[in-house]
C-alpha cells in the first residue's frame, strides 16, 4: 500500500488546513506590494549604489527597508526599522524590513561580529537619509518651494506654515523605483558603507530611536505560527541524512547498499568519501542512516588523549605568532620587579550545540537553483552551495529562513552545502537535517587554548611590567562563512583542499601599564580535514577564552598588590574616562564593598563577588558576579549579575537588555558547564547528556543592567561584548568566596570540589 503523503492527507481529509507559505522574505516583500511595483518602472540591478536596493515605498506610503545583514533573534531588524523610520520621518510601524534573501538584499555580511547595528544599521541610516533627501527634493519641485522650507511628518512633506500644501511619500513615488544612485564604497560584506547627500538627524531630535519597540515576529513564534528552516517543504523533495565515520580520520572502504533494501525508497548517495542516504519519507531516511552498513578504513588516533590536551597545546610547534601590544621593555622591568606574579589558564573546546541540528533545503534540479538556509550568512551560504553544486553563483538564489540560533559558524553552514550537493547528485530537491549526534559531535568548535600572565610589582605594589600570552588553535580552521566548499565537511569529503586561516588575538582592555606586552601563538589543527574538532567562530570568537584568563589574572595581580579589585582596575583605567565609567557604574549599582579579599565563608555555602571589565570593538562592559559555592557538592551558582554596558548610542533599550541577559546566561553556561569531550579517535560529546548546558535551575536569580547611553556617539555592537566579561567575573567571585583560584573552564562541581579539597 502506498503511504499517504501529506498532500494526499490534506486533499483527502479536508480536516486540517496547513497553508503552504512561500518560505522566507519574499513573502514579506510581496505582501508589501513591491513585486507589483516592478511594472511601474524598471528596477535597477540589485547593487549597493542603487537607492532602490535599500528602500522601497508603496503607494500607501509604507516603507520597506532591504537589510543585507541578519537578525538571529535579538531584534536587529527592529533596530533597523527604527533607524529608517527616524531618518525618513515616518512612524515606526510603517517600516518593514526584508532580510536574508540574495534576490532582494545586498550582501552586507550577514550576522557577523555584533555589527548588525554598528555597520549594517549605519548603511541603512545613510540610505534612509538619502531617500528622504530625494523625496523632499521631489516634493519641492511638485509644490514649488525650495526643499529647505519643507518639513516631513509621518511620511507627508509639507510647508510648515501652510499645512494644506503637502504631498505624501506615497503620492511622490509610491510603487515606483527611485532610479537614483547613492555613494557606495565599492565593498561588500561587513565593510559595505554608503554615504548620503545630506546629514542624519541630530540625536536630540530622535523620536523613534531610543524607544523599546517589541519584535513582531515573537508573536508568530510564540503562537506556533512562524516558519523555520526545518519547516520548508518543497514539492518533490527527498529527505536526506548524512553518514559520518565512527572514528574521525576514517574514510569509507565499502558501502553495503543491500543493508537498507528493506526500507522503502531508501538509497545511498555517494561521491568519493561523502556518503548520505535519501528517501521519499523522512523517517525512512532516518532509519536508513541508522541501518546502513559501511566498512571504514582502520581507525587511527588523530587526537591526543583528552587529559593531555593542554600539554599538547603547550608543546605544539607554533604555526603563527603575533605581538599586538608592545610598550616599554617588559622583560627588563620584570627582572627589576620587587615581586613577580604568574599564572596560567585553560579553556576547552566548545560546541555551538545549537538547539536544533543543521538543516537546509536545496534544489538545483532544473529551473531556478534555490537554497533555503538558516545560516546567519545566507549570501555566503548561497555562494558555497552554488560552487559545490556546480551552478554559477549568480544563477542561484539563497533564502534565509529562521532557524535554531547559530551563534557563529555552526553546522547550518555545512548543511547548506550538503543539501546542494545532494540535490545535484540526485537531480531532486533535497532537505537534509542532521541528527543530534552530528549537531554536537560534528559542528565546528570554539578553539581551546592556554593563556598565561606575568606581572611585575614594585615595592609599593605598583604594576611595572605586564605580559599576557595566548597559545591555542586558530579560531578559523573553517572560514567565518561557508562561501567555499574548502570550508565545509562535504567539500573536504569530495576532495576540496582545506584553507585554514591563522587568526588569533589578545585581550581587549586599556590598562595603562608602563611596560606591557600582549602576544599570541597558534598551533596546527589536530586533524587537517573533515575534522569534528575543526575550529570556527563561536559567539564572541576567543572572547570568553582570553578574558577569562586576562580578567582572572588582573584580579590575581590586584590581590598580590593588596588592592581592592575595583580600585585596582580604576587606578589603571584613569586615563580613559569611558572605560573607567563602566567599572564605576557597575560597582555603584552592585554596592561593591571595597577591601582586599578573600573572605572565606563559613558553613556549606560560601558566597563571593567578583568583577571583570572588557572592551569589544567599541563597546565597553563591566560585570560583577555574585556566586554561591556549595562546599559539599562543589556546585557553583552564579546567583546574581550586575552589568554596566556602554555601546554608544542606544537604539532600543528593551531589546538591548534582553540581548545582554542572553549573553550573560549563555556565557555562564560556557563557564560552568561546557566542554567538548573526546578520545583519541573521535568526539565523545554527542548529545545534551554528554555536552550539558545550563538549565533553568542554574540560571541566575537576577541580572541587573545599567545602560550607559551616549547618543552623541555612533551605535556600537551589543550581540557579543557582554559575553566575554562573564567568565572572569565568575572566577573572581569564586576566589572571593573560597580563597581558591580556578584557572580551568568549565568550573564543574567535580573540579570545584577537588580544588577546595586541595586548598
Amino acid at each position, binding site marked *: 500500500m502506498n503511504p499517504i503523503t501529506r498532500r494526499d492527507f490534506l486533499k483527502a481529509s479536508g480536516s486540517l488546513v496547513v497553508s503552504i507559505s512561500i518560505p522566507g522574505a519574499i513573502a514579506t516583500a510581496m505582501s508589501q506590494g513591491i513585486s507589483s511595483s516592478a511594472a511601474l518602472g524598471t528596477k535597477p540591478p540589485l547593487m549597493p549604489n542603487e537607492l532602490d536596493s535599500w528602500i522601497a515605498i508603496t503607494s500607501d506610503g509604507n516603507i520597506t527597508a532591504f537589510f543585507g545583514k541578519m537578525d538571529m533573534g535579538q531584534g536587529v531588524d527592529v533596530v533597523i526599522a527604527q533607524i529608517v523610520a527616524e531618518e525618513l520621518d515616518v512612524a515606526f510601524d510603517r517600516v518593514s524590513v526584508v532580510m536574508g534573501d540574495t534576490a532582494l538584499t545586498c550582501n552586507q555580511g550577514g550576522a557577523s561580529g555584533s555589527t548588525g547595528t554598528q555597520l549594517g544599521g549605519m548603511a541603512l541610516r545613510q540610505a534612509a537619509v538619502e531617500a528622504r533627501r530625494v523625496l523632499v527634493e521631489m516634493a519641492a519641485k511638485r509644490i514649488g518651494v525650495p526643499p529647505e522650507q519643507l518639513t516631513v511628518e509621518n511620511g507627508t512633506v509639507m510647508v510648515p506654515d501652510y499645512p494644506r500644501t503637502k504631498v505624501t511619500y506615497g503620492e511622490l513615488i509610491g510603487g515606483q523605483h527611485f532610479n537614483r544612485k547613492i555613494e557606495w564604497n565599492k565593498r561588500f560584506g561587513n565593510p559595505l558603507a554608503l554615504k548620503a547627500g545630506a546629514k542624519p538627524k541630530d540625536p536630540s531630535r530622535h523620536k523613534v530611536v531610543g524607544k523599546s519597540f517589541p519584535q513582531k515576529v515573537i508573536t508568530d513564534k510564540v503562537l506556533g505560527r512562524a516558519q523555520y528552516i526545518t519547516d520548508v517543504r518543497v514539492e518533490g523533495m527527498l529527505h536526506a541524512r548524512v553518514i559520518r565515520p565512527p572514528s574521525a580520520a576514517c574514510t569509507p572502504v565499502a558501502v553495503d547498499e543491500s543493508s537498507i533494501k528493506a526500507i522503502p525508497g531508501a538509497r545511498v548517495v555517494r561521491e568519493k568519501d561523502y556518503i548520505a542516504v535519501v528517501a521519499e519519507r523522512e523517517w525512512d531516511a532516518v532509519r536508513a542512516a541508522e541501518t546502513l552498513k559501511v566498512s571504514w578504513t582502520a581507525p587511527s588516533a588523530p587526537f591526543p588523549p583528552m587529559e593531555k590536551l593542554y600539554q599538547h597545546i603547550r608543546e605544539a610547534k607554533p604555526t603563527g605568532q603575533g605581538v599586538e601590544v608592545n610598550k616599554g621593555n617588559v622583560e627588563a622591568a620584570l627582572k627589576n620587579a620587587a615581586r613577580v606574579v604568574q599564572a596560567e589558564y585553560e579553556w576547552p573546546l566548545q560546541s555551538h550545540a545549537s538547539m536544533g541540528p543543521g538543516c537546509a533545503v536545496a534544489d538545483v534540479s532544473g529551473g531556478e537553483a534555490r537554497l533555503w538556509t538558516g545560516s546567519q550568512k545566507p549570501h555566503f551560504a548561497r555562494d558555497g552551495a552554488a560552487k559545490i553544486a556546480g551552478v554559477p553563483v549568480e544563477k542561484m538564489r539563497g533564502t534565509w529562513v529562521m532557524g535554531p540560533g547559530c551563534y557563529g559558524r555552526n553546522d547550518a553552514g555545512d548543511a547548506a552545502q550538503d543539501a546542494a550537493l545532494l540535490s545535484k547528485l540526485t537531480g531532486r530537491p533535497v532537505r537534509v537535517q542532521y541528527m543530534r549526534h552530528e549537531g554536537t559531535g560534528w559542528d565546528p568548535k570554539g578553539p581551546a587554548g592556554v593563556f598565561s600572565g606575568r606581572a611585575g610589582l614594585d615595592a609599593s605594589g605598583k604594576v611595572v611590567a605586564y605580559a599576557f600570552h595566548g597559545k591555542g588553535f586558530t579560531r578559523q580552521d573553517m572560514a567565518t562563512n561557508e562561501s567555499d566548499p574548502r570550508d565545509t565537511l562535504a567539500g573536504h569529503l569530495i576532495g576540496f583542499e582545506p584553507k585554514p586561516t591563522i587568526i588569533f588575538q589578545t585581550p581587549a582592555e586599556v590598562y595603562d601599564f608602563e611596560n606591557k606586552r600582549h602576544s599570541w601563538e597558534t598551533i596546527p589543527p589536530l586533524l587537517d580535514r573533515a575534522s569534528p574538532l575543526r575550529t570556527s567562530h563561536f559567539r564572541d570568537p576567543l572572547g570568553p577564552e582570553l578574558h577569562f584568563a586576562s580578567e582572572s589574572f588582573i584580579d590575581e595581580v590586584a590581590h598580590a598588590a593588596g588592592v581592592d579589585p575595583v580600585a585596582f582596575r580604576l587606578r589603571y583605567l584613569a586615563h580613559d574616562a569611558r572605560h573607567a565609567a563602566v567599572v564605576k557604574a557597575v560597582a555603584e549599582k552592585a554596592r561593591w564593598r571595597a577591601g582586599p579579599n578573600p573572605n572565606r565563608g563559613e558553613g556549606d555555602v560560601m558566597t563571593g563577588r567578583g568583577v571583570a571589565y572588557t572592551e569589544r570593538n567599541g563597546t565597553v562592559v563591566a560585570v560583577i558576579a555574585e556566586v554561591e559555592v556549595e562546599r559539599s557538592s562543589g556546585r557553583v551558582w552564579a546567583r546574581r549579575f550586575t552589568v554596566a554596558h556602554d555601546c554608544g548610542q542606544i537604539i532600543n533599550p528593551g531589546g538591548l537588555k534582553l540581548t545582554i541577559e542572553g549573553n550573560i*546566561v549563555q556565557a555562564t553556561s560556557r563557564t560552568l558547564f561546557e566542554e567538548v569531550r573526546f578520545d583519541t579517535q573521535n568526539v565523545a560529546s554527542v548529545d545534551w547528556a554528554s555536552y550539558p548546558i545550563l538549565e533553568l535551575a542554574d*540560571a541566575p536569580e537576577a541580572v541587573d543592567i545599567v545602560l550607559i547611553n551616549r547618543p552623541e556617539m555612533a551605535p556600537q555592537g551589543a550581540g557579543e561584548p557582554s559575553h566575554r566579561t562573564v567568565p572572569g567575573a565568575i572566577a573572581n567571585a569564586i576566589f572571593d568566596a573560597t580563597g581558591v583560584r580556578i584557572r580551568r573552564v568549565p568550573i564543574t562541581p567535580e573540579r570545584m570540589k577537588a580544588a577546595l579539597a586541595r586548598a
Partner: protein
Amino acid sequence: MDQKISFVVDGKSATVSADPAMPLLYALHSELGLNNPKFGCGKAQCGACTVHLDGAPVRSCVMPVAAAAGKQVTTLTGLGTPERPHPLQKAYIEEQVPQCGYCLSGWIMTAAAFLKNNPKPTDAEIRQAMAGIKCRCGTHMAIMRAIKRAAGTLTA
C-alpha cells in the same frame, strides 16, 4: 509494516499510514506537515518536540506514533489562537522571551501542564519543574518572568 493510525491534532482528526514505531514527531512534522513540534535531539533530552497527549506533556521524538492512536494531540500551534492565546503565550509575548524560539514547544507546553496543576508555584518549584528543557540562546531570565507573569506571581 505500515499501519493506519488515527488521532486528533489541535482539534482536527488526522490519519497517518506509517511504521507504528515511528516517533510521533515525524508523523506530526513530516507526514502531516505541521510546523510544531520541532526536532531537537531525538533523545528526550531537550524538550523541543514536546506536545500534549490527552493534556499531558510528552516528548514526541521518542514516543511511537502508535501510542497516540485515538488520543488528543495538542501542539504549540493549537495551544492558543491569535485572538485567545494561552496565558503563557500572552506572557511570552509581553515579556518578549524568545530569541531564536526553536525551543518554545519545550518550555511552553511543559509549563502549561505544570501551571495547570500548580497555579501559584514558587521560583524553586518552577526551576525544578523545567528540568531537562533546553534553551541555547540563554533567555532563561525572561522565561522565568513569563512563567511567573502567567501564574500572576510576577512582581516588579
